[in-house]
């Protein structure tokens, strides 16, 4: 049994941010996450560090939170934030009144703007639709959500926090109606462990209601699915937003060598069974190509989807911290943190930990806004110079990941999860989406003895099915061509197909 003070459920940005906050305030804690970091909405978002411009017309409070967190994260998370800058572009027919409100509110909230002529905007982003009326620059950034989670968790681990990924909460231990711990299942060994703590923080996003129910309460939520697509080129170096009320497919974000466009908004029931509908792909692509015409003809490498955990509007037992997120004290030893967005994860963590400190009656001050994230030098990803170190043993040709890097990652994590390697090295993130290199990474994994050859093939099968799920909604053009080649390898040469 593990004994700690605070149990955090959920390894998204919020959960990891809470772990770091607790670590810096000297509170023992244990975080459990059923998958890898950023498994839910955190990993399935745009990777946009909002300036607040997106919200400024309809929700000034949220916009204000965004711009102050934006300034903080630029400072403390330099290695996972790319200071791209952003544009809001107005196309013919887009409301001028919205534009005026936008500029006025930005000024009030403190979001720095510059109005740019089409020529100036096209200088910055040559792929922009030349028909734009004007563009307004804002301090939007792109952010790597996965690295953000890892860096937050890094501080926690360094200060003695327990971070258990691939551990699923299977029950909440209650004594006299009070939550005193959780039972978790280690998904690689199926071992069941018990963790006891004084407070349980439910930061499980779309799974929040299910977790709260295990504790005897509940969180009324609306689940909204948002789907995004990835184009195989960095068509813009700046974030590009549509200058109109928030709607489908109105944001394009550059990320490493690619760019992402999204999203959609569809109400769903079950966060575990969501799929991208090809019609959503068409919708987002059609909207994105209005801002950047070449988005419509660029090869799409994948579509993905996540679930926004929105709180139902008038939940009686919630304490409204802001319109962006809420902290709910279930008064049974569990606190739920719900709603919000990636850009304000640190603030959400701060407010949640403040609530916990109130319960403990201690007063350690939050320091997460002042101190840079630890571990940024160690976890800087792989610059091209490092990736080209041993060109002869390249495992992933798209992202230039060599065998030594794969082996080191396997050994340092002791992992049997292919996703862990992909997230940390970018293996399989390129155009073929792991169609060629995952077979190799798993071949290496079984050679290191981390898994048996049989397990390795089973893992490969599961990966290929998961991969296909992401690729299938956006299959045409060159991606379809490559997909049929991948199919011919696994179903043809390796004969792995199901036969009737």
């Amino acid at each position, binding site marked *: 049994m593990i004994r700690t003070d605070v149990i955090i459920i959920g390894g998204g940005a919020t959960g990891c941010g809470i772990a770091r906050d607790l670590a810096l305030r000297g509170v023992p804690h244990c975080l459990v996450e059923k998958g890898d970091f950023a498994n839910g909405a955190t990993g399935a978002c745009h990777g946009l560090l909002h300036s607040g411009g997106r919200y400024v017309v309809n929700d000034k409070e949220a916009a204000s939170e965004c711009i102050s967190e934006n300034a903080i994260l630029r400072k403390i998370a330099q290695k996972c934030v790319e200071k791209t800058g952003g544009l809001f572009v107005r196309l013919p027919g887009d409301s001028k009144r919205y534009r005026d409100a936008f500029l006025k509110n930005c000024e009030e909230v403190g979001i720095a703007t510059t109005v740019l002529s089409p020529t100036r905007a096209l200088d910055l982003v040559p792929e922009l639709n030349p028909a734009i009326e004007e563009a307004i620059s804002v301090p939007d950034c792109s952010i790597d959500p996965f690295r953000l989670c890892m860096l937050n968790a890094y501080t926690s681990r360094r200060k003695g926090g327990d971070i258990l990924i691939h551990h699923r909460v299977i029950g909440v231990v209650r004594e006299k109606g009070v939550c005193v711990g959780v039972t978790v299942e280690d998904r690689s060994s199926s071992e069941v462990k018990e963790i006891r703590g004084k407070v349980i923080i439910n930061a499980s996003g779309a799974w929040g209601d299910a977790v709260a129910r295990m504790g005897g309460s509940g969180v009324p939520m609306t689940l909204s699915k948002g789907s995004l697509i990835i184009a195989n080129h960095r068509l813009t170096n700046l974030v590009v937003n549509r200058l109109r009320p928030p709607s489908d497919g109105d944001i394009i974000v550059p990320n490493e060598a690619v760019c992402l466009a999204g999203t959609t908004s569809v109400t769903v029931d079950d966060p575990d069974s969501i799929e991208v509908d090809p019609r959503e792909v068409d919708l987002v692509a059609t909207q994105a190509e209005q801002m950047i015409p070449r988005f419509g003809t660029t090869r799409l490498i994948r579509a993905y989807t996540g679930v926004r955990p929105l709180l139902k509007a008038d939940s009686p037992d919630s304490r409204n911290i802001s319109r962006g997120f809420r902290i709910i004290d279930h008064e049974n030893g569990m606190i739920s943190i719900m709603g919000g967005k990636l850009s304000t994860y640190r603030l959400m963590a701060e407010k949640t930990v403040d609530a916990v400190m109130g319960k403990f009656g201690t007063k350690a001050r939050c320091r997460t806004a002042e101190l840079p994230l630890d571990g940024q030098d160690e976890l800087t990803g792989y610059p091209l110079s490092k990736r080209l170190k041993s060109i002869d*043993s390249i495992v992933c040709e798209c992202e230039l990941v060599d065998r030594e890097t794969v082996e080191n990652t396997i050994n340092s994590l002791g992992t049997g999860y292919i996703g862990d390697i992909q997230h940390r090295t970018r293996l399989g993130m390129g155009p073929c989406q792991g169609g060629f290199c995952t077979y190799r990474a798993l071949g290496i994994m*079984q*050679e290191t003895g981390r898994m048996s*050859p049989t397990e390795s093939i089973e893992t490969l099968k599961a990966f290929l099915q998961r991969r296909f799920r992401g690729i299938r*909604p956006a299959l045409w053009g060159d991606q*379809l061509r490559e997909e049929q080649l991948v199919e011919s390898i696994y179903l*043809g040469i390796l004969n*792995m197909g199901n036969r009737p």
Partner: protein
Amino acid sequence: MSAYEYDVVVVGGGVSGITAALTLAEKGLKVALISKGDPVCCLSTGCVDVMTGEGDPWQKIGELPAGHPYVKAGDDALRDGLVFFLRIMEEQGLPYVGSLTENRPIITPIGTVKHTCLVPVTMAASDLAKSERLHVVSFKGIKDFYPSYLTNGISRSSFSVFDAGISTTLGIASRFEDEGFLGRFISWLQDTENPHDRIAVPAVLGLRDPVKVMERISKAMGRPVFEIPTLPPSIPGLRLFRALKGALQAKGGHLYWGKGVSSIERQGSEIEAVTLATAGRAARVQGRAFILATGSFVSGGLYAGRDAVRETVFGLPVFVPGERREWFHAQFFTPGHAIEKAGIVVDDCFRPAGGKLKNLYVCGSILAESEVMKNQCGHGLAIATGVAAARMCARGLA
């Protein structure tokens, strides 16, 4: 512009196109073959899959729907085509073996068994009996070949790893051309290998004369040696392609290699000529008849846009199975996506249906309803339809 005149111009340099061209060249016709580059058969195992699974492939062909190209081509075209193929390969020094009525097993790189019809002689000894002990040889640093998958899947087997000083399949295959290298490999194998019944090697035993390399190793070791086809780039696929291309050149076929068709000249219901995009000046290639053998999506004969599928050379109408969201079902490992049916619908003479073009014939995986992946009938279908289209074409010219 340079201008050339042929009886038949074949567009597409894969197995179906070369088979059609060879068939016509053997009939004494003046044949040209145009290809953008090395065909996708270079990515294949090199084996001739006729129809999926164990047993008699003809039985499963008998169950195909009437619109399937095999049914259109008829049993004779397939049988004659396979016999023809065996003869051509024998002539080219790359003999194939296999029974036309009984699929045979080969071993895949993950240790599973796959059944196919004709295999290169270097894979003939893949029919390992359960009681036999197998030794697998791998090469240091080689990608896509993990011998522990094989030893895990095959009982009574072991492996050892040879350092060839290079790790690509093409690089290792080139080294096997060298006597000294082969000698060093053999003495290493004699030193390291325990007594086993057979020896398996990834398919890298030379480029030009793999049979000689295999026989040398086999003789020195006193037991059968066989190759395991690898993932692309595949050396047996490359050998197959080179042998077919060599055969066509030997029979007087004219090759336009590395060139795409840039424009078409049409006179009424006949194609008159195509122009090739070449460096320097354009070439006009005139033919009395044309054969389209550009393959499906992977080879670029078909291109799927967001809303429509087009045929990339002549702009022929393409049969498309439903809307885009219906092209792929959800299960990666269950073959039979609807998109596999996409292609050119032809009449009984292998001409595009509708009768608008009288001197154009179509063969290979670009044909509608072929479902190559589902049926695992790639090279078999290419050979059968290549022969059938060529025969129709010859008849049309007579």
